[in-house]
Protein backbone atom coordinates (compact mmCIF):
# COMPACT_ATOMS: atom_id res chain seq x y z
CA UNK A 1 0.00 0.00 0.00
CA UNK A 2 1.31 3.44 -0.94
CA UNK A 3 2.52 5.46 2.05
CA UNK A 4 1.14 8.86 2.81
CA UNK A 5 3.34 11.76 1.78
CA UNK A 6 1.66 14.04 4.28
CA UNK A 7 -0.61 13.23 7.15
CA UNK A 8 -2.45 15.50 9.56
CA UNK A 9 -3.77 13.90 12.73
CA UNK A 10 -6.31 15.55 14.98
CA UNK A 11 -5.12 19.14 14.44
CA UNK A 12 -6.36 21.73 16.93
CA UNK A 13 -5.67 25.41 16.50
CA UNK A 14 -7.12 28.53 18.07
CA UNK A 15 -6.37 32.24 18.14
CA UNK A 16 -7.29 33.29 21.66
CA UNK A 17 -10.94 32.43 22.17
CA UNK A 18 -11.46 31.82 18.48
CA UNK A 19 -11.35 28.09 17.74
CA UNK A 20 -10.11 27.52 14.19
CA UNK A 21 -9.49 23.77 13.91
CA UNK A 22 -11.07 21.18 16.16
CA UNK A 23 -9.60 17.84 15.26
CA UNK A 24 -8.76 18.12 11.55
CA UNK A 25 -7.24 14.96 10.06
CA UNK A 26 -6.32 14.31 6.43
CA UNK A 27 -3.82 12.47 4.26
CA UNK A 28 -2.10 13.29 1.00
CA UNK A 29 -0.45 10.70 -1.24
CA UNK A 30 2.35 11.19 -3.76
CA UNK A 31 1.11 13.03 -6.85
CA UNK A 32 -2.33 13.56 -5.38
CA UNK A 33 -4.21 16.87 -5.62
CA UNK A 34 -6.45 17.83 -2.78
CA UNK A 35 -8.94 20.70 -2.94
CA UNK A 36 -9.66 22.43 0.35
CA UNK A 37 -12.97 24.29 0.30
CA UNK A 38 -14.93 26.13 2.92
CA UNK A 39 -16.48 29.46 3.74
CA UNK A 40 -14.43 32.52 4.63
CA UNK A 41 -12.80 32.28 8.04
CA UNK A 42 -13.01 28.50 8.30
CA UNK A 43 -9.23 28.23 8.61
CA UNK A 44 -8.26 26.91 5.18
CA UNK A 45 -5.22 29.18 4.84
CA UNK A 46 -4.34 28.66 8.52
CA UNK A 47 -4.25 24.90 7.85
CA UNK A 48 -1.79 25.41 4.96
CA UNK A 49 0.32 27.76 7.07
CA UNK A 50 0.33 25.20 9.89
CA UNK A 51 1.51 22.44 7.55
CA UNK A 52 4.59 24.42 6.52
CA UNK A 53 5.20 25.74 10.05
CA UNK A 54 4.27 29.39 9.54
CA UNK A 55 1.67 28.87 12.27
CA UNK A 56 2.13 26.58 15.26
CA UNK A 57 -0.69 24.16 16.04
CA UNK A 58 -2.00 23.79 19.59
CA UNK A 59 -2.44 20.02 19.45
CA UNK A 60 -2.18 17.14 16.97
CA UNK A 61 0.46 15.73 14.65
CA UNK A 62 1.79 16.69 11.22
CA UNK A 63 3.74 13.92 9.51
CA UNK A 64 5.79 14.32 6.36
CA UNK A 65 7.15 11.01 5.03
CA UNK A 66 6.05 9.51 8.38
CA UNK A 67 8.21 11.98 10.34
CA UNK A 68 6.60 14.34 12.83
CA UNK A 69 7.40 17.94 11.97
CA UNK A 70 4.92 20.04 13.97
CA UNK A 71 7.32 20.52 16.90
CA UNK A 72 10.42 21.37 14.85
CA UNK A 73 12.21 24.72 15.19
CA UNK A 74 12.56 27.14 12.27
CA UNK A 75 16.06 25.83 11.52
CA UNK A 76 14.99 22.19 11.75
CA UNK A 77 12.10 22.88 9.35
CA UNK A 78 14.43 24.09 6.57
CA UNK A 79 14.88 20.71 4.78
CA UNK A 80 11.11 20.14 4.88
CA UNK A 81 10.40 23.61 3.52
CA UNK A 82 12.58 22.76 0.52
CA UNK A 83 10.55 19.62 -0.21
CA UNK A 84 7.21 21.26 0.55
CA UNK A 85 6.61 24.72 -0.83
CA UNK A 86 3.95 27.37 -0.34
CA UNK A 87 2.40 29.51 -3.03
CA UNK A 88 1.02 32.69 -1.46
CA UNK A 89 -2.33 34.18 -2.38
CA UNK A 90 -0.83 37.45 -3.60
CA UNK A 91 2.46 35.95 -4.78
CA UNK A 92 4.37 37.59 -1.87
CA UNK A 93 7.15 38.56 -4.27
CA UNK A 94 10.15 40.46 -2.90
CA UNK A 95 9.28 43.90 -4.21
CA UNK A 96 12.80 45.33 -4.09
CA UNK A 97 14.27 42.81 -6.55
CA UNK A 98 13.34 41.79 -10.10
CA UNK A 99 11.59 38.67 -11.40
CA UNK A 100 14.89 36.83 -11.97
CA UNK A 101 16.11 37.40 -8.42
CA UNK A 102 12.71 36.42 -7.01
CA UNK A 103 12.63 33.08 -8.81
CA UNK A 104 16.35 32.43 -8.34
CA UNK A 105 16.25 33.16 -4.58
CA UNK A 106 15.71 29.52 -3.45
CA UNK A 107 18.42 28.33 -5.88
CA UNK A 108 20.96 30.82 -4.52
CA UNK A 109 20.03 29.81 -0.98
CA UNK A 110 19.82 26.04 -1.20
CA UNK A 111 21.91 24.88 -4.16
CA UNK A 112 25.48 25.22 -5.31
CA UNK A 113 24.54 25.85 -8.94
CA UNK A 114 26.62 28.34 -10.91
CA UNK A 115 25.14 31.68 -11.92
CA UNK A 116 24.77 30.51 -15.54
CA UNK A 117 22.99 27.32 -14.47
CA UNK A 118 20.62 29.35 -12.30
CA UNK A 119 20.00 31.72 -15.21
CA UNK A 120 19.08 28.79 -17.45
CA UNK A 121 16.79 27.27 -14.83
CA UNK A 122 14.99 30.57 -14.29
CA UNK A 123 14.60 31.06 -18.05
CA UNK A 124 13.09 27.54 -18.34
CA UNK A 125 10.75 28.28 -15.47
CA UNK A 126 9.63 31.56 -17.04
CA UNK A 127 8.91 29.66 -20.25
CA UNK A 128 6.76 27.22 -18.29
CA UNK A 129 4.69 30.04 -16.79
CA UNK A 130 4.43 31.88 -20.14
CA UNK A 131 6.49 34.85 -19.01
CA UNK A 132 9.52 34.26 -21.22
CA UNK A 133 12.05 37.11 -21.23
CA UNK A 134 10.51 38.96 -18.28
CA UNK A 135 13.52 38.45 -15.98
CA UNK A 136 14.32 42.12 -15.60
CA UNK A 137 10.82 43.32 -14.73
CA UNK A 138 10.12 44.41 -11.18
CA UNK A 139 7.10 42.91 -9.33
CA UNK A 140 5.35 46.29 -9.51
CA UNK A 141 5.50 46.07 -13.32
CA UNK A 142 3.49 42.81 -13.32
CA UNK A 143 -0.27 42.28 -13.28
CA UNK A 144 -1.87 40.38 -10.39
CA UNK A 145 -2.05 37.18 -12.44
CA UNK A 146 1.59 37.48 -13.51
CA UNK A 147 2.67 38.05 -9.90
CA UNK A 148 0.84 34.89 -8.83
CA UNK A 149 2.53 32.89 -11.58
CA UNK A 150 5.97 34.25 -10.66
CA UNK A 151 5.22 33.36 -7.03
CA UNK A 152 4.27 29.85 -8.14
CA UNK A 153 7.45 29.62 -10.21
CA UNK A 154 9.51 30.58 -7.17
CA UNK A 155 7.76 27.97 -5.05
CA UNK A 156 8.38 25.16 -7.56
CA UNK A 157 11.94 25.98 -8.71
CA UNK A 158 13.44 23.50 -6.21
CA UNK A 159 11.19 20.69 -7.50
CA UNK A 160 9.24 20.19 -4.26
CA UNK A 161 7.22 17.07 -3.55
CA UNK A 162 4.22 19.10 -2.39
CA UNK A 163 2.98 22.57 -3.29
CA UNK A 164 0.49 24.27 -1.01
CA UNK A 165 -1.57 26.73 -3.06
CA UNK A 166 -3.35 29.48 -1.14
CA UNK A 167 -6.21 30.70 -3.35
CA UNK A 168 -4.17 30.87 -6.56
CA UNK A 169 -7.11 31.99 -8.68
CA UNK A 170 -8.64 34.52 -6.27
CA UNK A 171 -9.20 37.94 -7.82
CA UNK A 172 -8.17 36.88 -11.32
CA UNK A 173 -10.10 37.43 -14.54
CA UNK A 174 -11.17 34.29 -16.48
CA UNK A 175 -8.16 34.41 -18.84
CA UNK A 176 -5.65 34.65 -15.99
CA UNK A 177 -7.54 32.00 -14.01
CA UNK A 178 -7.16 29.68 -16.99
CA UNK A 179 -3.42 30.42 -17.17
CA UNK A 180 -2.94 29.60 -13.50
CA UNK A 181 -5.10 26.47 -13.65
CA UNK A 182 -3.25 25.17 -16.71
CA UNK A 183 0.06 25.77 -14.92
CA UNK A 184 -1.22 23.78 -11.94
CA UNK A 185 -2.27 21.01 -14.32
CA UNK A 186 1.24 20.91 -15.81
CA UNK A 187 2.71 20.54 -12.32
CA UNK A 188 0.21 17.82 -11.46
CA UNK A 189 1.27 15.92 -14.58
CA UNK A 190 4.86 16.13 -13.29
CA UNK A 191 3.72 14.16 -10.24
CA UNK A 192 3.84 17.00 -7.71
CA UNK A 193 1.27 16.58 -4.96
CA UNK A 194 -0.72 19.61 -3.92
CA UNK A 195 -3.23 21.04 -1.52
CA UNK A 196 -5.32 23.71 -3.19
CA UNK A 197 -7.21 26.17 -1.00
CA UNK A 198 -9.90 27.84 -3.07
CA UNK A 199 -13.41 29.22 -3.36
CA UNK A 200 -13.34 28.38 -7.06
CA UNK A 201 -15.34 25.13 -7.17
CA UNK A 202 -15.04 24.58 -10.92
CA UNK A 203 -11.22 24.80 -10.81
CA UNK A 204 -11.15 22.46 -7.80
CA UNK A 205 -13.35 19.91 -9.60
CA UNK A 206 -11.17 20.16 -12.71
CA UNK A 207 -7.84 19.81 -10.88
CA UNK A 208 -8.32 17.79 -7.73
CA UNK A 209 -8.44 14.07 -7.01
CA UNK A 210 -10.21 14.68 -3.73
CA UNK A 211 -12.17 17.54 -2.26
CA UNK A 212 -12.30 18.38 1.42
CA UNK A 213 -14.81 20.79 2.92
CA UNK A 214 -14.03 22.54 6.20
CA UNK A 215 -16.89 23.80 8.32
CA UNK A 216 -16.73 25.16 11.86
CA UNK A 217 -13.22 23.81 12.42
CA UNK A 218 -13.98 20.29 11.25
CA UNK A 219 -13.85 18.34 8.01
CA UNK A 220 -17.41 17.60 6.97
CA UNK A 221 -16.67 16.16 3.53
CA UNK A 222 -13.70 14.25 2.11
CA UNK A 223 -14.27 12.46 -1.19
CA UNK A 224 -13.83 12.64 -4.97
CA UNK A 225 -15.07 15.63 -7.01
CA UNK A 226 -17.81 13.42 -8.47
CA UNK A 227 -19.16 12.55 -5.03
CA UNK A 228 -18.77 16.19 -4.01
CA UNK A 229 -21.13 17.28 -6.80
CA UNK A 230 -23.63 14.59 -5.84
CA UNK A 231 -23.32 15.02 -2.09
CA UNK A 232 -26.55 15.28 -0.16
CA UNK A 233 -24.80 16.93 2.78
CA UNK A 234 -26.83 20.14 3.29
CA UNK A 235 -23.72 22.25 4.06
CA UNK A 236 -21.94 21.00 0.91
CA UNK A 237 -25.11 21.60 -1.10
CA UNK A 238 -25.44 25.10 0.32
CA UNK A 239 -21.79 25.75 -0.50
CA UNK A 240 -22.15 24.51 -4.09
CA UNK A 241 -25.37 26.45 -4.67
CA UNK A 242 -23.97 29.67 -3.22
CA UNK A 243 -21.17 29.58 -5.77
CA UNK A 244 -23.40 29.02 -8.76
Amino acid at each position, binding site marked *: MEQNLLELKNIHKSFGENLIHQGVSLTLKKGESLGLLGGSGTGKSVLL*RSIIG*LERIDRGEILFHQERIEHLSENQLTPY*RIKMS*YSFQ*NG*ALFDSVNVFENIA*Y*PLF*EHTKLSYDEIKTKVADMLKLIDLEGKEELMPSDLSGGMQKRVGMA*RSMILNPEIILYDEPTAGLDPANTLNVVSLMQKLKQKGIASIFVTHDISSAIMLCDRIIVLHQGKIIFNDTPMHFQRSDNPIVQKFINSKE
Partner: protein
Amino acid sequence: MRTLSYQLSSISLQLKRFFIFIGEIFALFFETIRCTFSSPFYFSRLMEQITHIGYGSTSITVVIGLTMGLVMTLNFGYGLAKFGGTLYVPAVVSLSLAREMAPLFTSLLVAGRVGSGIAAEIGAMNVTQQIDAIRALGTSPVRVLVVPRFWALVLSLPLLSALSFAVGILGGLIVCKTEFDIIPGLYLYKVFSTVKFHDYMSGLVKSAVFAGIITIFACYKGLNTRDGTKGVGLTTTWVVVTASILILVTDFFISKIFLVIW
Protein backbone atom coordinates in the same frame (compact mmCIF):
# COMPACT_ATOMS: atom_id res chain seq x y z
CA MET B 1 -12.73 45.85 45.77
CA ARG B 2 -13.57 44.78 42.25
CA THR B 3 -11.93 47.92 40.85
CA LEU B 4 -8.76 47.21 42.81
CA SER B 5 -8.60 43.61 41.61
CA TYR B 6 -9.25 44.78 38.03
CA GLN B 7 -6.44 47.33 38.30
CA LEU B 8 -4.07 44.75 39.77
CA SER B 9 -4.79 42.26 37.01
CA SER B 10 -4.35 45.01 34.43
CA ILE B 11 -0.96 45.97 35.92
CA SER B 12 0.16 42.34 36.08
CA LEU B 13 -0.89 41.86 32.44
CA GLN B 14 1.10 44.93 31.40
CA LEU B 15 4.12 43.76 33.37
CA LYS B 16 3.86 40.34 31.75
CA ARG B 17 3.72 41.97 28.29
CA PHE B 18 6.71 44.16 29.15
CA PHE B 19 8.84 41.19 30.24
CA ILE B 20 7.80 39.22 27.16
CA PHE B 21 8.84 42.22 25.02
CA ILE B 22 12.23 42.46 26.76
CA GLY B 23 12.69 38.72 26.36
CA GLU B 24 11.90 38.90 22.65
CA ILE B 25 14.30 41.83 22.14
CA PHE B 26 17.12 39.84 23.77
CA ALA B 27 16.12 36.70 21.83
CA LEU B 28 16.40 38.67 18.57
CA PHE B 29 19.78 40.06 19.63
CA PHE B 30 21.17 36.61 20.50
CA GLU B 31 19.72 35.10 17.32
CA THR B 32 21.44 37.88 15.35
CA ILE B 33 24.78 37.05 16.99
CA ARG B 34 24.22 33.30 16.46
CA CYS B 35 23.40 33.81 12.77
CA THR B 36 26.50 36.00 12.36
CA PHE B 37 28.79 33.18 13.42
CA SER B 38 27.09 30.40 11.47
CA SER B 39 26.94 30.03 7.69
CA PRO B 40 25.75 31.40 5.37
CA PHE B 41 26.82 34.99 6.00
CA TYR B 42 25.58 37.41 3.35
CA PHE B 43 28.63 39.57 2.74
CA SER B 44 27.16 41.22 -0.37
CA ARG B 45 24.03 42.20 1.57
CA LEU B 46 26.25 43.64 4.32
CA MET B 47 28.14 45.77 1.79
CA GLU B 48 24.84 46.86 0.25
CA GLN B 49 23.56 47.95 3.67
CA ILE B 50 26.82 49.72 4.55
CA THR B 51 26.45 51.73 1.34
CA HIS B 52 22.79 52.45 2.00
CA ILE B 53 22.90 53.03 5.77
CA GLY B 54 26.46 54.28 6.30
CA TYR B 55 27.47 56.09 3.13
CA GLY B 56 23.91 57.35 2.71
CA SER B 57 24.09 59.09 6.10
CA THR B 58 27.33 61.03 5.47
CA SER B 59 25.67 64.22 4.26
CA ILE B 60 23.46 64.67 7.35
CA THR B 61 26.45 63.71 9.53
CA VAL B 62 28.57 66.45 7.97
CA VAL B 63 25.79 69.00 8.43
CA ILE B 64 25.17 68.11 12.09
CA GLY B 65 28.92 67.89 12.87
CA LEU B 66 29.71 71.25 11.31
CA THR B 67 26.71 72.93 12.95
CA MET B 68 27.64 71.53 16.37
CA GLY B 69 31.25 72.71 16.02
CA LEU B 70 30.26 76.19 14.87
CA VAL B 71 27.51 76.75 17.46
CA MET B 72 29.35 75.25 20.44
CA THR B 73 32.53 77.19 19.74
CA LEU B 74 30.62 80.41 19.32
CA ASN B 75 28.72 79.96 22.60
CA PHE B 76 31.64 78.68 24.66
CA GLY B 77 33.88 81.37 23.15
CA TYR B 78 31.68 84.31 24.15
CA GLY B 79 30.86 82.70 27.49
CA LEU B 80 34.48 82.06 28.45
CA ALA B 81 35.70 85.40 27.03
CA LYS B 82 33.96 87.15 29.94
CA PHE B 83 36.35 85.34 32.30
CA GLY B 84 39.40 85.62 30.04
CA GLY B 85 39.21 81.92 29.23
CA THR B 86 39.08 82.06 25.42
CA LEU B 87 42.13 79.81 25.16
CA TYR B 88 40.16 77.02 26.83
CA VAL B 89 37.58 76.98 24.04
CA PRO B 90 39.36 74.36 21.82
CA ALA B 91 39.74 72.00 24.79
CA VAL B 92 36.13 72.34 25.95
CA VAL B 93 34.68 72.00 22.46
CA SER B 94 36.84 69.04 21.46
CA LEU B 95 36.19 67.13 24.68
CA SER B 96 32.44 67.72 24.45
CA LEU B 97 32.42 66.65 20.83
CA ALA B 98 34.51 63.51 21.32
CA ARG B 99 32.77 62.23 24.43
CA GLU B 100 29.18 63.31 24.00
CA MET B 101 27.96 65.57 21.27
CA ALA B 102 29.30 63.83 18.15
CA PRO B 103 28.19 60.27 19.05
CA LEU B 104 24.93 61.38 20.65
CA PHE B 105 23.64 63.76 17.98
CA THR B 106 24.84 61.61 15.11
CA SER B 107 23.10 58.58 16.65
CA LEU B 108 19.88 60.51 17.22
CA LEU B 109 19.84 61.67 13.62
CA VAL B 110 20.67 58.20 12.33
CA ALA B 111 17.92 56.75 14.57
CA GLY B 112 15.53 59.05 12.74
CA ARG B 113 16.84 58.39 9.27
CA VAL B 114 17.93 54.75 9.39
CA GLY B 115 15.81 53.38 12.26
CA SER B 116 12.58 54.53 10.68
CA GLY B 117 13.75 53.28 7.27
CA ILE B 118 14.59 49.80 8.55
CA ALA B 119 11.32 49.55 10.49
CA ALA B 120 9.24 50.74 7.53
CA GLU B 121 10.99 48.43 5.05
CA ILE B 122 10.76 45.30 7.20
CA GLY B 123 7.28 46.24 8.43
CA ALA B 124 6.03 46.63 4.85
CA MET B 125 7.61 43.28 3.96
CA ASN B 126 5.81 41.73 6.91
CA VAL B 127 2.35 43.02 6.05
CA THR B 128 2.77 41.92 2.42
CA GLN B 129 3.78 38.38 3.52
CA GLN B 130 7.34 38.74 2.19
CA ILE B 131 8.72 37.76 5.61
CA ASP B 132 6.49 34.65 5.54
CA ALA B 133 7.83 33.95 2.04
CA ILE B 134 11.42 34.12 3.32
CA ARG B 135 10.52 31.60 6.04
CA ALA B 136 8.48 29.38 3.72
CA LEU B 137 11.43 29.21 1.32
CA GLY B 138 13.55 27.68 4.08
CA THR B 139 15.55 30.78 5.00
CA SER B 140 15.71 32.89 8.13
CA PRO B 141 14.47 36.51 8.16
CA VAL B 142 16.99 37.23 10.91
CA ARG B 143 19.88 35.96 8.78
CA VAL B 144 18.66 37.59 5.57
CA LEU B 145 17.37 40.93 6.92
CA VAL B 146 18.55 41.61 10.46
CA VAL B 147 22.20 40.47 10.43
CA PRO B 148 23.34 42.63 7.48
CA ARG B 149 21.55 45.71 8.84
CA PHE B 150 22.84 45.16 12.38
CA TRP B 151 26.50 44.87 11.39
CA ALA B 152 26.23 47.57 8.74
CA LEU B 153 25.11 50.10 11.35
CA VAL B 154 27.41 48.81 14.13
CA LEU B 155 30.35 49.32 11.75
CA SER B 156 29.11 52.54 10.16
CA LEU B 157 27.85 54.57 13.11
CA PRO B 158 31.23 54.83 14.92
CA LEU B 159 32.76 55.96 11.62
CA LEU B 160 29.97 58.49 11.14
CA SER B 161 30.52 59.75 14.69
CA ALA B 162 34.24 60.09 13.97
CA LEU B 163 33.38 62.05 10.84
CA SER B 164 30.98 64.22 12.83
CA PHE B 165 33.75 64.87 15.39
CA ALA B 166 36.28 65.77 12.67
CA VAL B 167 33.88 68.14 10.93
CA GLY B 168 32.89 69.63 14.30
CA ILE B 169 36.56 70.32 15.07
CA LEU B 170 36.84 71.99 11.66
CA GLY B 171 33.80 74.15 12.47
CA GLY B 172 35.39 75.10 15.79
CA LEU B 173 38.63 75.99 14.00
CA ILE B 174 36.79 78.34 11.63
CA VAL B 175 34.98 80.16 14.49
CA CYS B 176 38.12 80.33 16.66
CA LYS B 177 40.08 81.90 13.80
CA THR B 178 37.42 84.37 12.67
CA GLU B 179 35.85 85.34 16.01
CA PHE B 180 38.54 84.87 18.68
CA ASP B 181 41.81 85.22 16.75
CA ILE B 182 43.06 81.78 17.80
CA ILE B 183 45.44 80.60 15.07
CA PRO B 184 44.73 77.11 13.58
CA GLY B 185 48.06 75.67 14.78
CA LEU B 186 47.36 76.58 18.39
CA TYR B 187 43.76 75.43 18.09
CA LEU B 188 44.76 71.99 16.78
CA TYR B 189 47.56 71.67 19.36
CA LYS B 190 45.03 72.37 22.14
CA VAL B 191 42.54 69.90 20.66
CA PHE B 192 44.96 67.00 20.29
CA SER B 193 46.67 67.57 23.63
CA THR B 194 43.30 67.60 25.41
CA VAL B 195 41.42 64.70 23.83
CA LYS B 196 42.91 61.40 24.99
CA PHE B 197 42.54 57.86 23.65
CA HIS B 198 39.78 56.97 26.11
CA ASP B 199 37.77 60.01 25.06
CA TYR B 200 37.81 58.80 21.45
CA MET B 201 37.02 55.27 22.64
CA SER B 202 34.11 56.50 24.73
CA GLY B 203 32.54 58.08 21.65
CA LEU B 204 33.19 55.06 19.43
CA VAL B 205 31.87 52.51 21.93
CA LYS B 206 28.78 54.61 22.54
CA SER B 207 28.11 54.83 18.82
CA ALA B 208 28.43 51.07 18.38
CA VAL B 209 26.03 50.42 21.29
CA PHE B 210 23.57 53.00 19.94
CA ALA B 211 23.77 51.33 16.52
CA GLY B 212 22.87 48.00 18.10
CA ILE B 213 19.91 49.57 19.91
CA ILE B 214 18.63 51.26 16.75
CA THR B 215 18.81 48.16 14.54
CA ILE B 216 17.52 45.59 17.02
CA PHE B 217 14.52 47.71 18.00
CA ALA B 218 13.79 48.71 14.40
CA CYS B 219 14.05 45.12 13.13
CA TYR B 220 12.04 43.74 16.05
CA LYS B 221 9.22 46.18 15.49
CA GLY B 222 9.35 45.68 11.73
CA LEU B 223 9.13 41.89 12.10
CA ASN B 224 6.13 42.30 14.41
CA THR B 225 4.22 44.89 12.38
CA ARG B 226 0.50 44.20 11.99
CA ASP B 227 -2.54 46.03 10.58
CA GLY B 228 -1.30 46.97 7.12
CA THR B 229 -0.03 50.40 6.17
CA LYS B 230 -1.43 51.97 9.34
CA GLY B 231 0.68 49.50 11.32
CA VAL B 232 3.78 50.43 9.30
CA GLY B 233 3.24 54.12 10.17
CA LEU B 234 2.84 53.34 13.87
CA THR B 235 5.93 51.12 13.77
CA THR B 236 8.19 53.83 12.35
CA THR B 237 7.01 56.41 14.90
CA TRP B 238 7.47 53.95 17.75
CA VAL B 239 10.98 53.04 16.63
CA VAL B 240 12.20 56.64 16.35
CA VAL B 241 10.76 57.63 19.74
CA THR B 242 11.89 54.47 21.57
CA ALA B 243 15.36 54.38 20.04
CA SER B 244 15.90 58.09 20.80
CA ILE B 245 14.88 57.70 24.44
CA LEU B 246 17.02 54.58 24.85
CA ILE B 247 20.00 56.32 23.26
CA LEU B 248 19.72 59.22 25.73
CA VAL B 249 19.33 56.90 28.74
CA THR B 250 22.12 54.54 27.64
CA ASP B 251 24.41 57.51 27.01
CA PHE B 252 24.35 58.40 30.70
CA PHE B 253 25.28 54.88 31.80
CA ILE B 254 28.09 54.44 29.26
CA SER B 255 29.49 57.87 30.20
CA LYS B 256 29.43 56.83 33.84
CA ILE B 257 31.16 53.52 33.08
CA PHE B 258 33.91 55.25 31.08
CA LEU B 259 34.45 57.85 33.80
CA VAL B 260 34.81 55.07 36.38
CA ILE B 261 37.14 52.97 34.19
CA TRP B 262 39.39 55.86 33.11
